[in-house]
């Protein structure tokens, strides 16, 4: 095993979600003052990579496309035990949809080649499209498996992957190179030990711009995205909005009446 690439996405801290707002004019998310954290499932991806590294040795490289201000998030991921990080940051990348994003990531991964394995979280908390893993793999021409709930790799044995997919679990035998995206059940991510936190301080976070990737304007950003945001809609269904007040017992009686009217009780 030579190299494992782990895709990391800094996302707004879910504990601060109630402070998120959408700018009605630009239709973008107002993220100011909201701290970034590692997308939770990316920790499962990193843990999976580190378990292979612990077992048979490998260089674990983090890859993120995010503003330079999210460096501390990468530092935290380095402190879990990754060897180095690459941060893809360029205003040309802004506005990329999943296909354009996947092009940028895949091109960066080609620059990092050769590699054996790419690990991703199954979805991110903010976008939740879950499209990037399959698209990166397609653009690289390697197989991929989503919804990975368990992984077993004991060289010289094969890589066994458990996929949680309708209607149950499927056990797959896979070969490298390969891209896997992990679910929460896959493992329990390790804590950053204090020694690793110290060691991570000297690990490299390289910033790559499009000057290095050399992707044409028609492939990235808004211009390279086949999908466009056409509109924002305020969704409101007319609801009764009836307020029940009184003592807990009175409220309980009124609510039980309403439930009875539905014919459920």
């Amino acid at each position: 095993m030579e190299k494992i690439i782990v895709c990391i996405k800094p996302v707004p801290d879910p504990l601060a979600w109630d402070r998120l707002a959408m700018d009605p004019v630009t239709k973008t998310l107002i993220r100011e003052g909201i701290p970034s954290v590692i997308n939770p499932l990316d920790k499962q991806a990193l843990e999976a990579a580190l378990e292979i590294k612990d077992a048979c040795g490998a260089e674990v490289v983090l890859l993120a496309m995010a503003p330079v201000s999210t460096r501390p998030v990468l530092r935290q991921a380095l402190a879990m035990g990754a060897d180095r990080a690459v941060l893809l940051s360029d205003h040309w990348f802004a506005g990329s949809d999943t296909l354009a994003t996947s092009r940028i990531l895949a091109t960066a991964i080609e620059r990092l080649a050769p590699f054996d394995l790419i690990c991703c979280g199954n979805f991110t908390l903010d976008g939740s499209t879950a499209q990037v893993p399959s698209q990166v793999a397609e653009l690289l021409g390697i197989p991929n498996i989503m919804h990975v709930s368990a992984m077993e790799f004991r060289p010289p044995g094969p890589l066994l992957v458990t996929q949680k997919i309708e209607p149950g679990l499927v056990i797959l035998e896979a070969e490298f190179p390969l891209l896997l995206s992990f679910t929460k059940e896959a493992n329990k991510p390790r804590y950053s030990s204090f020694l690793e936190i110290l060691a991570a301080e000297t690990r490299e976070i390289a910033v790559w711009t499009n000057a290095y990737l050399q992707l044409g304007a028609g492939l990235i950003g808004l211009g390279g995205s086949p999908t466009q945001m056409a509109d924002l809609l305020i969704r409101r269904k007319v609801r009764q909005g009836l307020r029940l007040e009184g003592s807990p017992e009175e409220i309980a009686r009124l609510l039980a009446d309403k439930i009875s009217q539905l014919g459920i009780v």
Partner: protein
Amino acid sequence: MDFKLSEREELLRKSAREFAESEITPKIDAMEATGDFALDLLKPMAKLGITGIIAPREYEGVGLGYMARTIVLEEMARVCAAVSMAMQVHHMAIAALNDFGTEAQKKKYLPPLARGETMGCVAITEPSGGSDILGMQSTAALKGDTWILNGRKCFITNSHTSDFWLVLARTGEGPKGLTAFMVDKNAPGAKTGRVEHKFGLRGSNTGELVFDNCELPRESIVGQEGGGLGVALKTVSESGRTGMAAVALGILQSCYEESAKFANERVLYGKPISFLQAISFAVAEIYTELDMCRLLCYRASWMKDQNMRFDTESAMAKSYTCDAAANCAKKAIEIHGAYGIMQEYKVQRLLRDAMVTISAGGTGQIGKVVIGRAALAPFQKKG
């Protein structure tokens, strides 16, 4: 002046917080019920680096300073003050050995402490009192090549969870007549006595050590013969007071969080009680105390890391923070109303734990003696 924590300190906090919330939380109920420290936490705490945080790298520690230790103790105490208390005393033993031990003693004792194979224990207090250190009655006398130790230590944190104890005993008269020893729990004549049942910090083990003609090899002395007072004062003042202050700081943080959450959730007269000024002022007071104490605690720890003299500052941090924790825990209970005294709610534990921090690790009053001396000195007439 820079009041911002470094990236390293932020990462240490994050890691300690994740660990405490996920790994310590499930142990709290059992520790509260039995009063026993959850020994199975030691290995994972060692893996993270909590047990060896201030032990030097050459003895398998992490080699971090007091600022880092304060942040980590604070985060643990935010979840469970008892575990934080046990660790802060564990660190005191490491600090004493590192400051005063011989190379052989450091090699023997520091690695197992850093690796979390056993817990550190510093035994000063006796039935006659702890702050009146010179009134100590335990004695050690040299017979040939063997020290014979007699006496009884009480209210000793980690007494029953430690394999070896740092014990202070009288080897002569006056302030220069105290000496520190490392005592193996299997030494002939050494045994543990009763386990105390405290109303707060229940999960930190506290008990008695009894020495009945206990035989110790000559090389058991830590520091100089007659240098025990120095060992005790430096250890209590530096790692003890900053450690106790950090435990209380974590309690304060929790007082604030529990109060703010409850005030926003609890509805009276159709609105969350946080809309009532009586409640919002109480939360504001807790929040302010928390910030003051954090500044005091961090400054004292920072001074230690800068190799500055900081006995006054550590005494201020300890005595003020522990008092503030108890006062704020009382306020937090009042904010909770009747819920506050229910066992399901955390605030009652915060008050019980905070009360114990006041007398532990050098009472608040002794701290004030230190502070008073420093405060008055510049205006004292030279005799």
